[in-house]
């Protein structure tokens, strides 16, 4: 028998890219976005970049707790969220704060979450998100459940979930996609492949040629996208959402992107595993620079727009961190009462003991 007839194969893919490095677009692929929407995408990316820089410095000052930098990934984060509507659901990983905030979580709560305050996790009514997941992979299986729920309720909505290239090694990643395939669920799995899982490069993470093809085994539509191209990200998610809404099932999107900063602010030193050369190569693909060039040719973005957005972001972050800092501190009795709907007797007893004699 001819080898080709029984060996399972995948063809080479080219990633979806709409915006060139010098800001030219492929008109054929251009998503249908108004000028206002194009400006809004830019505003959100610039705002998020500033917010990220401020968050890093707040973390260094000890005013934030755990923080995972996002610069470089704005196109993938913001382009993908922008393609959803408010009723769609987000199941994020720890780095996906921008999507949560742009989907409606008040920023001061994101700060509270980082500072280790329970109220950071109290998602307001009408904001359709789960809290950021610490356990890598957990959000992937959970999103299958959320998607099934939406489907059973007859809603025309989708769930989007995010992980990294590292996360795509977890068993949960395969299980979640397989469920979404088997039950034909309206789920969108986004892998933000930023090249590294902490220090481990993608090449040590998998021998698969692309992470996108991991979705094929689950029988779901799988695509690879330039994750530093906000238009491509928007388009890929928008198409995936449409398929989900139409009952055509799940999609895996591998976004090829890069994080400019360290993995997190908890002691990671990227100089130990990345080269300057590599960093400057990726800097050329900066999603903000590319998109700015495009918008400037259309006279949609000026230096003033940029300056105003940065000022607005700085002011907002300052206000929101202040709000977070003036939120009443958690208490042990409050924590105890948050374990069950009705606090059982043994916890009541522990609460009392805390208040009476054991408290510090």
């Amino acid at each position, binding site marked *: 028998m001819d080898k080709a007839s029984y060996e399972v194969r995948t063809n080479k893919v080219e990633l979806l890219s709409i915006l060139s490095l010098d800001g030219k677009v492929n008109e054929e692929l251009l998503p249908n976005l108004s000028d206002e929407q194009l400006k809004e995408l830019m505003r959100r990316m610039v705002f998020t970049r500033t917010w990220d820089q401020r968050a890093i410095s707040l973390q260094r000052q000890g005013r934030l707790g755990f923080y995972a930098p996002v610069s470089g990934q704005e196109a993938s984060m913001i382009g993908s969220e922008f393609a959803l509507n408010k009723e769609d659901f987000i199941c994020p990983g720890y780095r996906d704060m921008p999507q949560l905030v742009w989907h409606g979580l008040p920023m001061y709560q994101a700060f509270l979450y980082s500072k280790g305050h329970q109220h950071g996790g109290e998602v307001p009514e009408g904001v359709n998100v789960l809290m950021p997941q610490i*356990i890598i992979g957990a959000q992937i299986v959970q999103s299958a459940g959320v998607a099934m729920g939406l489907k059973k309720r007859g809603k025309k909505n989708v769930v989007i979930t995010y992980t990294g290239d590292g996360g795509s090694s977890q068993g949960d990643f395969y299980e979640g996609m397989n469920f979404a395939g088997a039950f034909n669920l309206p789920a969108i799995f986004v892998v933000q492949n930023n090249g590294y899982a*902490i220090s481990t490069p993608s090449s040590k*993470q998998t021998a698969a040629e692309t992470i996108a093809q991991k979705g094929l085994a689950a029988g779901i539509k799988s695509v690879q996208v330039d994750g530093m191209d906000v238009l491509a990200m928007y388009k890929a998610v928008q198409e995936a959402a449409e398929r989900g809404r139409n009952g055509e099932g799940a999609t895996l999107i591998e976004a090829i992107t890069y994080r400019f900063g360290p993995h997190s602010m908890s002691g990671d030193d990227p100089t130990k595993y990345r080269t300057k050369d590599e960093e400057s190569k990726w800097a050329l693909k900066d999603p903000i620079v590319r998109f700015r060039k495009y918008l400037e040719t259309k006279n949609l973005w000026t230096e003033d727009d940029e300056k105003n957005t940065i000022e607005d972001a700085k002011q907002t972050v300052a206000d929101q961190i202040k709000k977070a800092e003036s939120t009443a501190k958690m*208490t042990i009795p409050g924590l105890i009462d948050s*374990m069950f709907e009705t606090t059982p007797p043994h916890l009541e007893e*522990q609460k009392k003991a805390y208040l009476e004699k*054991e408290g510090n």
Partner: protein
Amino acid sequence: MAQMTMIEAIKDAMRVELERDENVLLFGEDVGHVGGVFRATEGLQKQFGEDRVFDTPLAESGIGGLALGLGVQGFRPIAEIQFVGFIFEVMDSICAQASRMRYRSGGKYNSPITFRTPFGGGVHAPELHTDSLEGLMMQTPGIKVVIPSNPYDAKGLLISAIRDNDPVFFMEHLKLYRSFRGEVPEGEYTVPIGKANVVREGSDVTIITYGNMVHTSLKAAEELEKQGVQAEVIDLRTLMPLDIETIVESVKKTNRAIVVQEAQKTSGAAAEIMAQINEKAILHLEAPVIRVAAPDTVVAFGQIEKEWLPNEKRVIAGVKEVINF
């Protein structure tokens, strides 16, 4: 003798064992080139090569299965789980598979695996990084549970764990990694698994504890001495198997005991220790044994972690309670 932090002592133990026995392998997420998120394995890949010290893909269940399979092939894996809360992803390999390999195979195979994992509060880590999950492990037949409290013990116990032919769950308290230095001999030595250490002698009450709470309890004991109470402090070092003899001997002398643990109160190590004291020494007790522990909630988020964790004051209050019974 060299002065080392606990993390240096842990690294030294692995270096000694990698050198001594070529069947020893070390792997986990980020342990290779950068030497681990806490640098516990720094330099080891360089010294021993990628064949022996290597990064794995990000999959704890995979790490556990890999360790089990390599054990079957006669290797002695040291598998790092980056933070304790991630063991839930690998519970099947640890608790349902490795722990019963010897039993299931009628002794044909064993699981000479050391699972190393950082745990322990007081460092403002995000959720699921610091939980004290030793109680879960203690309830799993077939696995040993070791928790060192100082650099000397850490090295000696880790060498014992690596040489042990059964799986050992080795928990390293985050707060102790770099908080102080201690004398650590060069080269090989072992501290036996299953043997507690009386770290302070006293006649009035026994404080039974482990991990970072050893230090909290020692400080409490010093304060108590000023108030005229002589507390004996036992550092268990190993929770499974438990050195109940050392505990009973002490209780026979002091007639009073408290157990101090960082973990939540209910059904944990302290509950087991109290039960065994009850079984083996009840007639020597002048007061019920009590425990000082964290409340039965999830580990508090960073903001009130400090109030949540048991502290010196609460240990002192616990001692007073059994003294004034």
